[in-house]
């Protein structure tokens, strides 16, 4: 792998031991990928503050410098961690102090995370604490090389914004934050961004939040780790619909980049999505039968219609989604045995508070919670057996993570279930 003079200086310790360890990890990682070189990044989204048993043990042994060295740099050395070299943000993590008394979550983890926020904040990490950094001011521009984690954020950055990032991990984002470098491989290279599968929507019309999520779940199943191109009878999607589509495609498959010709920036046309002169494959149909099959898959874990938990905001809710939920809950009261949580970025919760949405939701008995989600923190209301959600991603993951049943439906169906305590959704 080719290294620049600057890469070699960092590797050889000119910027200190921690930066040298970071460069050592990037070189090992670059060789593992068979990358030709590294590229420069100045936008890193990773995770440092999320509590875990291993992290708690390392902090007890050697403080936060030790935890970062081992987990975020894969180094056994005793290192003093310098400030982040390039702009770096913390993605979603555990629950915070405002969840105490609401979420059954260990107090020790809340306290550990508070310490972590103080340490990493001092080192220049922006504590965005959301899986949707693009909703709270981190918007890379088209063509910008980034080092991001979080599969739903990676697919949004690549596809909707036209930025360039692989689905990085804890150690590679840690190393990138101290060096401003990442292997130039995969999604960083133009020739690896062309479409591989064509999906044609016909016989159904994809125009709602739910339908975009189901189409995403289907696209992930078709494309696996490759790059689907979506055409046919689809509406012009908004941010929330593409957020749902991408999260679902990254869940059922490993999609990191898709194109919607005429809508996403790198695909002005179907031909452009497959590259100039590229072969356009014959389309895979998404029609009524495929739509019904996806709906069936996402609802196959549910049998009891008694819903005791409704979860909204995966990926973290937009301000508009919070407002819509508030409108449906205005003047209503949740069923006595049912809880409703809306997960949101803290910055947007502040705006929901100011706009009055949070008060309406809380008067009905619901909650707007920040920073985390039940899947990240393995936490749901005590005694939850059956939950309902409008998120294809949570409907997929939460039954396995928490051992509970799932219903997947529209926002309206989920709010109705929270009010009546009963699931009455169905595919329309």
């Amino acid at each position, binding site marked *: 792998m080719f290294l620049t003079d600057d890469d070699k200086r960092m590797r050889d310790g000119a910027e200190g031991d921690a930066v040298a360890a970071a460069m050592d*990890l990037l070189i090992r990682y670059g060789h593992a*990928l068979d990358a030709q070189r590294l590229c420069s990044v100045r936008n890193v989204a990773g995770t440092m503050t999320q509590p875990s048993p291993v992290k708690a043990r390392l902090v007890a042994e050697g403080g936060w410098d030790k935890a970062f060295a081992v987990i975020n740099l*894969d180094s056994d050395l005793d290192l003093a961690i310098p400030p982040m070299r390039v702009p770096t943000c913390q993605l979603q993590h555990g629950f915070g102090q405002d969840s105490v008394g609401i979420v059954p979550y260990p107090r020790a983890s809340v306290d550990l995370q508070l310490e972590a926020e103080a340490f990493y904040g001092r080192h220049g990490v922006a504590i965005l604490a959301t899986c949707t950094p693009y909703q709270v001011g981190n918007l890379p521009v088209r063509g910008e090389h980034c080092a991001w984690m979080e599969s739903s954020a990676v697919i949004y950055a690549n596809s909707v914004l036209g930025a360039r990032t692989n689905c990085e*991990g804890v150690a*590679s984002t840690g190393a990138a934050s101290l060096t401003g470098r990442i292997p130039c491989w995969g999604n960083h290279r133009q020739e690896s961004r062309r479409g591989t599968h064509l999906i044609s929507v016909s016989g159904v019309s994809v125009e709602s939040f739910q339908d975009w999520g189901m189409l995403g779940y289907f696209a992930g199943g078709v494309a696996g780790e490759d790059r689907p191109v979506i055409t046919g009878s689809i509406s012009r999607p908004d941010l929330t619909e593409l957020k749902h589509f991408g999260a679902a495609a990254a869940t059922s498959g490993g999609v990191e980049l898709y194109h919607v010709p005429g809508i996403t920036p790198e695909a002005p046309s179907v031909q452009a999505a497959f590259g100039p002169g590229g072969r356009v494959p014959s389309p895979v149909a998404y029609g009524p039968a495929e739509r019904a099959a996806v709906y069936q898959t996402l609802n196959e874990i549910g049998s009891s219609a008694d819903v005791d938990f409704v979860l909204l905001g995966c990926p973290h809710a937009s301000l508009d989604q919070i407002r819509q939920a508030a409108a449906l809950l205005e003047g209503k009261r949740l069923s006595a045995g049912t809880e409703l949580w809306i997960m949101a970025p803290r910055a947007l919760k502040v705006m929901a508070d100011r706009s009055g949405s949070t008060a309406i939701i809380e008067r009905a008995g619901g909650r707007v919670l920040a920073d985390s989600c039940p899947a990240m923190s393995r936490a749901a209301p005590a005694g939850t057996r059956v939950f309902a959600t409008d998120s294809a991603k949570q409907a997929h993951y939460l039954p396995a993570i928490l051992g509970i049943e799932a219903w997947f439906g529209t926002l309206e169906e989920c709010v109705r279930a929270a009010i009546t305590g009963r699931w009455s959704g169905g595919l329309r």
Partner: protein
Amino acid sequence: MRSVILHGRAVVPGCVEGEALVSREPISGWGGIDPARGLITERRHELYGACFTGKILVFPSAKGSSGWAGFFQATRLSGTAPCGMIIGRISAKSALGAVVTRVPAITDLDADPCTVIATGDWLLLDNSTVEVTRR
């Protein structure tokens, strides 16, 4: 006992021998394994409940969350790691995962490892080659 030799590309250089644990399905890290016990925990997975500790894990690709490598790093820190990896199709997740697990790993083999190798076969990984001995 007969042996076959497969040729590929070293992901993490090194030499190790051990028993194969073969998955025909992609492996999840976050939400798919328990690092404390070295087990596959994804309920619908063909290897649900299987222990990979001390085995050479043979799998077609990594799927799911970007927490993949972090979870496999945790197997190393918990003493439950596999002793080697044979990866069908490399990705950022599995490449970084092999690096931070710090075990010899290989990809781009001249035959599909998930078809040629069976669980229980004895494997010798030596940088860019794998010697497979049937059990």
